[in-house]
């Protein structure tokens, strides 16, 4: 473990100092899931992406490496998570290649398939993906990557606390968070439309933690299904 870490540091230093160094051999890349205090960022090749500048805690702009106050830079589009860096995972279609997925569209209607899970829930005031939902998103991304004619609408929602229009923006950001995780895994941007509904379409009317938990969500809706 320590060797890989040192190797990663060397690579990072090399990249930062502009030297040409071969990237480390592609070993198993741990999926770090969410990081405290920031949005989810992908993992750059070689372990340390060249993140964007600046550190806004919420958006997880790392300055390369791991910023304890933010997510790790990467996830190339960099709208909400990660910086503008190109070193992130985002540009590739790593994982399943085109047409290469253990899933088929028929699985969308198979009650025993993970693909029938269409709702991702979020923590209060957070847009980062909880670790428990990563396998679901990986499955959807795998299918969508293999079947580029499939399209989804990602409908983001917020609980009732806070102002209505801010919640529309927050819920849209949640939709982008789901999309960005999946584009890092082969989804094409044009396959996904994002709509933020704020607190306007609650799954559960009423107050209290139980209702609020059910309302903070992104729903994956296959268009034309």
């Amino acid at each position: 473990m320590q060797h890989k870490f040192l190797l990663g540091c060397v690579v990072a230093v090399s990249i930062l100092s502009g030297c040409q160094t071969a990237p480390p051999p592609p070993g198993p890349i741990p999926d770090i899931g969410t990081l405290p205090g920031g949005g989810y960022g992908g993992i750059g090749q070689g372990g340390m992406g060249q993140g964007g500048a600046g550190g806004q805690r919420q958006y997880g702009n790392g300055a390369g490496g791991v910023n304890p106050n933010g997510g790790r830079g990467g996830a190339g589009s960099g709208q909400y998570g990660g910086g503008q860096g190109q070193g992130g995972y985002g540009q590739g279609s790593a994982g399943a290649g085109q047409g290469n997925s253990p899933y088929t569209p028929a699985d969308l209607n198979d009650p025993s398939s993970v693909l029938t899970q269409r709702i991702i829930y979020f923590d209060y005031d957070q847009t980062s993906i909880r670790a428990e939902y990563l396998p679901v998103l990986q499955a959807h991304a795998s299918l969508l990557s293999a079947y580029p004619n499939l399209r989804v609408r990602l409908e983001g929602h917020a609980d009732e606390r806070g102002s209505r229009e801010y919640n529309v923006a927050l819920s849209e950001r949640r939709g982008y968070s789901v999309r960005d995780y999946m584009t890092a895994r082969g989804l094409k941007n044009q396959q996904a439309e994002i709509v933020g509904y704020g607190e306007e379409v609650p799954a559960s009317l009423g107050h209290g933690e139980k209702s609020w938990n059910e309302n903070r969500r992104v729903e994956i809706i296959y268009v034309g299904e």
Partner: protein
Amino acid sequence: MKRKLSVLLLLVSGLLVSLTSRAELVIRITDGTNDGIPVMIIPFQGGDLASVIESDLQRTGLFTLIDPSKAGQALAMGQPFQTEPLRASGAEYVIVGKQAGSLEFEILNAATGKRAAGYRIAQSPNQRRMGHKAADLAFERLTGKKGAFDTQVAYVSASGVARAQTYQLIVADSDGFNPRTILSSNKPVMSPSWSPDGNRLAYVSYESGRSVIYVQDLVSGSKRAIADHPGMNAAPAWSPDGRFLAMSLSQEGNPDIYLMDANGGGLRQITTSKAIDTEPAWANSNTLIYTSDESGSPQLYRTTVAGGEGSRFTFTGEYNAAPSVVGNTVAMVRDIGSANRIALMNASSKDSKLISEGTYDESPALAPNGEMVIYATESGGRGVLAVASANGKARQVLATQVDDVRDPAWSPYLD
């Protein structure tokens, strides 16, 4: 005995009828104040508009209403009156009037024994509007400030079960009476904003499957989509001179404040932060106050139509959003931890105070004279609208019989 019983039955059944009608009812939860201008309003001859005036004046928190039964005499327009019993009652002014087609009323000075003012208001198809115009005149005469009772409010009503609600955009008198539906949809409607001439509403509707800003003519009913860019189209706000609409668009990736000509052209970006910038409100023709979370959580920021980075405007409280600005007063929703409350801030001194007491208060909208704030709150398990006086001394809930109402917007002064 029999006669009294039948009268009682008539009264009870009349009360039941009015409770079950769909008209808005005003329920006072905090009666005015006891250190305001003491005014006695004698029930008017020929109609019930005195109650409209009484309710209006109370809503400002600037008046103490004295029970007319303490007049100690019969009072009528044009008649001389005794000052002693009026002074004993505590009243400084008395309002008497009569309605016969048009509405005539007088303001009597209880101390001098003289008639302070007399007014005549032409007949109107909306009778209550005559009462609101009278209340405006009385308010101006007694406080020196411009009245805002003869105005309207727009708001959203939702009904039905979760995930299958229907939404209505409604316009009503400023006290909630005479509601009429402007738009009905099975997709969300939100964020109404009045044009300065009071003839149009801008609002957000999801009827096409995503958020789009529409402008609807209230007279003709015609509507057009004015902002339908990729991403979010949100939070329209008409400029005070009617030439521009401010709005929040996320077409560049994150929500920023934009300006557009009122006819739909000339789009230009005002804020450029990577944060969420939304809920613009015009402080004057040059200045916008808006919500931004660039500090980590929502606070109010200030910028000008020239654009660029905004400067932070609120420093009290962890979460401030949804600004409404009239003159030097900024209303906002503030999360105080245990609740969301409405706060009013003096833009010069930056002092602020909480003027509501609910748990889920939000969406404040100041009356055009800055003396009252309408906002969304909860009562009896449903969303209701309430009006609080700017001095914090009075609060009235505008209770509806059905549905869940929210998202109010106060009209400008109307002709």
